[in-house]
């Protein structure tokens, strides 16, 4: 079949292999609808990145790592990439007519998600192509798009979009200083209790449209905390988190693996100091392998005493140290710091570690600078 397109629009072929790959990446979605949404988002991302790389000089990368983007696709249509220091949001649609760009509000009004450019993408699976048929800037959306309260979207007519993607490449080259964004109001934070209630409620997959089930400000506040967002996605996918203490029990080994951790044995070293020989037995600890700047590391969580936990980061490469500048950080689940929550390597060190006293039920988020390639923000419950 001959395809008939406006020559200014970018059409990218979707080879079967790309489709299969995107489909297999979408299989752990919670519902048929979110699986299909994830599939379209993934296809768009995988097809567009090589093409954008070819068209201009800046490096093109997904906005977040693949798991983090897949988690967003569970909840919201659209995916995002970084193009040099600009951010692009791609909104796939199956519509054959290209009359409007319908953009979920999350991409426009959550401050951390705001992008420079928004691209309308038509996906036709059977004919095997995607077509980027227009784009616009955040500024244009805030100035001219219609906001639809019923489905919380912004819509722009095709005539208000720029059809020629070349204009974007040329803009990045000749006027990268153009102001493409306007300020959006910060989203008021919610308490951990509120967040956990929301996760419980919206984690139920019988709620098919979680993004419309609570007021936008609450929903946005939940999403902008990546650990809560991931928690909600896990819950919808039926992955039930329990406390870290439970994770240490031998029978939890499989469960722990679902969350990217594994159980390891360790000899408590603090035992001798108390002269208490009775507990000098091997204990279980948790370990997670990480890749930071292309090199392997391991993060461990060790129970030291009844309510004291130790976080340790070491290099897994033989004889390697942790380079200067690395930071291991712990945050409360609403992302607040606290005293003694950071350990930074000023010079290369053998390990970074933190010890914290925690009450039962307390939640913590761990972070490392630079961010590990496969990092998933998570709330660990103790």
């Amino acid at each position, binding site marked *: 079949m001959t395809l008939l397109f406006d020559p200014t629009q970018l059409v990218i*072929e979707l080879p079967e292999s790309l489709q299969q790959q995107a489909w297999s990446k979408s299989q752990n979605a919670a519902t048929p609808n979110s699986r299909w949404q994830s599939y379209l988002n993934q296809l768009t991302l995988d097809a567009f990145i090589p093409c954008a790389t070819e068209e201009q000089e800046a490096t093109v990368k997904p906005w977040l790592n693949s798991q983090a983007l897949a988690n967003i696709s569970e909840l919201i249509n659209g995916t995002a990439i970084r193009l040099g220091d600009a951010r692009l949001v791609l909104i796939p649609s199956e519509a054959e007519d290209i009359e409007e760009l319908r953009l979920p509000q999350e991409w426009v009004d959550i401050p951390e998600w705001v992008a420079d450019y928004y691209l309308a993408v038509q996906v036709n699976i059977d004919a095997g192509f995607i077509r980027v048929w227009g784009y616009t800037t955040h500024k244009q959306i805030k100035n001219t798009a219609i906001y639809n309260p019923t489905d919380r979207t912004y819509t722009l007519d095709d005539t208000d979009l720029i059809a020629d993607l070349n204009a974007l490449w040329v803009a990045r080259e000749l006027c990268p200083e153009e102001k493409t964004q306007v300020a959006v109001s910060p989203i008021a934070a919610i308490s951990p209790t509120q967040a956990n209630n929301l996760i419980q409620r919206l984690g139920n997959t019988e709620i098919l449209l979680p993004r419309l089930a609570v007021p936008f400000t609450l929903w946005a506040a939940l999403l902008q905390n990546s650990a809560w967002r991931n928690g909600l996605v896990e819950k919808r996918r039926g992955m039930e988190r329990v406390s870290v203490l439970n994770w240490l029990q031998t029978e939890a080994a499989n469960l722990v693996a679902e969350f990217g951790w594994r159980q390891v044995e360790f000899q408590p070293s603090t035992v001798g100091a108390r002269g208490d020989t009775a507990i000098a037995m091997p204990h279980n600890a948790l370990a997670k392998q990480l890749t930071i700047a292309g090199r392997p590391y391991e993060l461990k969580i060790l129970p030291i005493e009844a309510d004291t936990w130790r976080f340790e980061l070491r290099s897994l490469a033989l004889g390697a140290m942790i380079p200067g500048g690395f930071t291991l950080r712990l945050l409360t689940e609403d992302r607040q710091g606290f005293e003694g929550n950071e350990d930074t390597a000023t010079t290369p060190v053998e390990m970074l570690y933190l010890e914290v006293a925690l009450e039962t039920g307390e939640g913590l988020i761990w972070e490392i600078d630079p961010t590990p390639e496969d990092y998933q923000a998570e709330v660990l419950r103790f």
Partner: protein
Amino acid sequence: MIPRQDIAQIFSTFIQFDFDRFSNWVSDPRLRRSISKCLSEIAQQETSENFWAIYWHKRWQKQPQGIARDHLLAYLQEVCFWSAQKTIRGFTSTQYKIPDGFQIAIAGVDKVLKGFNGDRGFNLKSYASITFSNLIRELLRQRQEIDICSEWSLLRKLSQKRLDESLQNAGLSAEVREKYILAWNCFKNIYVPDRSNPTRRLAKPSPEAWKAIANLYNQEKKGQLSAPGETVKPEITEKWLLICVKAARSYLYPNVTSINQPKPGYDSGEIADSLVGEIEDSLLTEMIVEEEVQERNQQQSQINEILISALGQLKPDEQKLLELYYGQKLKQGDIAQELGTQQYTISRKLSRVRKSLLKSLSLWTKETLHISLTSDVLKGMSAVIEEWLESHYHSNP
């Protein structure tokens, strides 16, 4: 077709079809009065049709709802006719007639008016010609796709805007449309294709799926509808969605006889005309001032030079590609066949050539005209290039 001769006629008459052929030009009295008045005001000066096209386009930008749009609609009749003829002829696999194409294209006139670069554009006709052809091709492509889709697949291939327009076109009230659109959204959420199931051949949803669709509708109607209305049964949502399918199909195939219905320049009396008087007068004086016209001409010949020199720097195969596409009007697929490659390759190659032209013109704009580049300025430049390529390779549309 008999081409129109004088300015007054060009800006105030509309094509009448006799079945699938041109029949005659029909004059619209209100437009006739309006253009005659303008012409008499500047009687001492020679004016070209392009002068008036630019003038009405400027006025349209100031007042999109005013009489200017109707004058432009009249002006663009011929180019629309030729675009329709050219495009329909190139479309071998169908039995479409010129009025089909004409109707599709003229319905998209706002796309032409919005896309044309009023400040730096050369010729509205060239821009209209390429835009009309694109519109016709796009709609024929959509028809091809929709024709091979099952009802249930078709529903997934509509934008919400298109569905709403289709329902509106079918005469449904806002309240009813809102309900159908919610039902449609519920359908799309529940009835999802998967890889084993081609997206064009979706079968009718199972009774369980209909139940789930109705459930979701009943769950969401309170939050999403201005008047939630009654709880609906699965049969009702099915009925509604079939109405949506029918409306969408007939929207894509409008009845061609409606083409000879009363024209937009209806005779509504003098009040509307006199209200817009002041703006038009100052604009007209502004445009007649010699310098403005000169400056515009000078700028255009500069742009012309820039683009010709940029064209000269292209490789021979790139020049050939432009010649085949813009000059000989070959479709990308045919060019691909002729050059023994894939359509995607041709499309990308064309795009890259256009990008180099866009870059040359943008750099010149920035450095010579001292205009700071923005996405909007670039959008306008892109339109100038399309229009320029069209007229450069095909000076007699």
